[in-house]
């Protein structure tokens, strides 16, 4: 067992699970989607991205790409939230909430791809 692999796998799976936790629930109901969970998902995603830096293989490149996609989508979701709550002054309307959650849904898809690659890589190695 390799500690580096444990940490790597941990962050990738955690990024996906947090993202899923935020995504699940009615799409337009703010009560179903916790702000702190979004924050945690963003932070863990960023860390997962940095962990993927510096791998020159083809699989490493795809890993990094999926993470960057997830970061982009989650940050867009967070910005939408901040804009609605502070700048636009409308508060969290149903429309805003659905766009935030759908953005995080996109990120979830990228994270799932990431997890699938992780599993595929593990199976390929056979040790």
């Amino acid at each position, binding site marked *: 067992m390799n500690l580096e692999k444990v940490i790597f796998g941990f962050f990738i799976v955690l990024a996906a699970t947090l993202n899923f936790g935020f995504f699940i629930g009615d799409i337009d109901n703010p009560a179903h989607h916790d702000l702190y969970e979004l*924050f945690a998902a963003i932070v863990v995603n960023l*860390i997962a991205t*940095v*962990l993927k830096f510096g791998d020159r293989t083809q699989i490493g490149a795809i890993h990094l790409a999926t993470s960057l996609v997830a970061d982009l989508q989650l940050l867009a979701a967070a910005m939408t939230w901040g804009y609605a709550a502070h700048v636009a002054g409308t508060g969290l309307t149903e429309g805003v909430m659905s766009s935030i959650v759908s953005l995080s849904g996109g990120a979830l898809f990228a994270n799932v791809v990431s997890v699938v690659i992780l599993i595929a890589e593990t199976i390929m190695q056979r040790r």
Partner: protein
Amino acid sequence: MPGPAATSTIFLVLRRLRTPLIVLITIFAISVLGLTLVPGPPGADGVLQRLSFFHAVYFFSYTATTIGFGEIPYAFSEQQRLWVTFSIYLSVVGWAYTLGTVFAMLQDKTFISAVAMQRFVRQVRRLREHFFLVCGYGETGRLLCKALDEMGYRAVVIEKDEAKVGELELQSYSADMPALCADAGDPETLLVAGLNSKYCRGVIALTNDDSTNLAIAIAARLLAPSLTALCRAKHADTVANMASFGTRHIINPFDKFGEYMALAIHSPSAYHLLLWLTGLPGTTVTRHRDPPSGKWVLCGYGSFGKVMTQALESAAMPVTIIDRAPPEDGTYTWIKGDGTGHAALAAAGIEDAAGIVAATGSDVNNLSIVVTAHQMNPQLFTVLRQNQVANRALFDAFESDFTMVPSEIIAHECLAILTTPLLAPFLQAVRTSEEHWAEQLLADLTSRFGWDVPSVWSVSFNLVQAPSVYRKMMRHEACPTLGELLRAPVTGRPQLHCRPLLLLREGNAPLVLPGEGEPLQLGDQLLFVGREEARKELNLTLFNSHTLDYVLTGKDAPGGTVWEWLARRRATARTR
């Protein structure tokens, strides 16, 4: 293919910065999260306020980067201030760690060399003109690069010694010369430096180390078989080894000088002609005294001494050797000593000798030998071996008859082979010629062009090098002779200041000194000697069809469709 080393810089940076980036993200996350949880002052309705994520991120963005706008959007509570104090120290540690890692990485040797390598690869890949690959930037390499630069060629340099690479960057060459600090014996390095690039015209191995030169020779032979490869070799067994796998140009400076010396004894004019034609651009050849026949004394029987002894003995001049150890092939007269003192020189019979060769490996000893010998016999012909270019001032001050500088000999030879391939057959003709023929030619050429080293260039009459002549001859419009072509495109069409030396025609033996009436044929290759202006004017003629028309007919042909049409009309009207 950029090579594995080329793309590694960005990955190296990312990998090194992994930990600092994670630390920064974590610290930022903890600080922001904490600030959203810590209770703030009571609001207007008496309820404790909390900072939203939006405000917390905003606050830490300016606090952590030390901008510090103050407490926004309202004055903080004491609990919030406590948390912010803690967070500020945390972020300072994070930034200090990150910056420390970045600076350590910038000074890291592997990182610097990776960056240099990448820059070099990019420079070589972007070269869009012909270049020569020079391995080893020692004294010879420097001379050669300078000459190539003056002649308008580019060079790519590989040198093992970092200090010498730095020196190259300080030199003011007119064109940029990509240089890499690496071992040229490594085939990977040679490939990165453009060995099999389509712009590479030749590879020149000039390192001090025979085994490295050998490695370059074999790499060039296998990876780029059609490329001209020139290799320097110090030892006879290296020469044999290189020759065994078909290296065509092997340069051993001692052998070369022995050849020169033999030629100078056998035919002084041919020797001077050779020097004049192969000199480094921008230098002047001075006429030497011809080596006299008689008894010779040689100090230092090393590899150079051996070659010199053979050259002298084959010209029937008896040689007395002064050396500490007796020569292995003990057929020569031998005096024990080092030649720097009176005793050994007197014992060797310096008083009635015709010449002396100072051939030891030490410059100071060589000078001491000839100065002492010169005092004892002022009529002596002196041949000096100079080992270090840096000692030039001393050697110039003594004014010996012959000075043998290995680096200059190699540079001459390389230039002659690389830049004008036709020169070699001509020089061969000079070497085997009669003395009076060479004397006549030398007198002709130097009275016309002076003793400054002339321009020597070759032209192939094909579509690439002489498009205007090629087109004209393909259309059978004209079949100019050499004399007709070699005129300046100015009023009166005076003769160009150049002279054809050699004509190479498919299927014929090389014609030395073709006459003015020689008609040109397509595919002819010609070697010219002359002034640089003549070369430029000839090039103009060869490339511009209007200039060619003027040179051949003396009339300015009209240019442009309308004028050509008018001229044709006028011509038909006249014939009617």
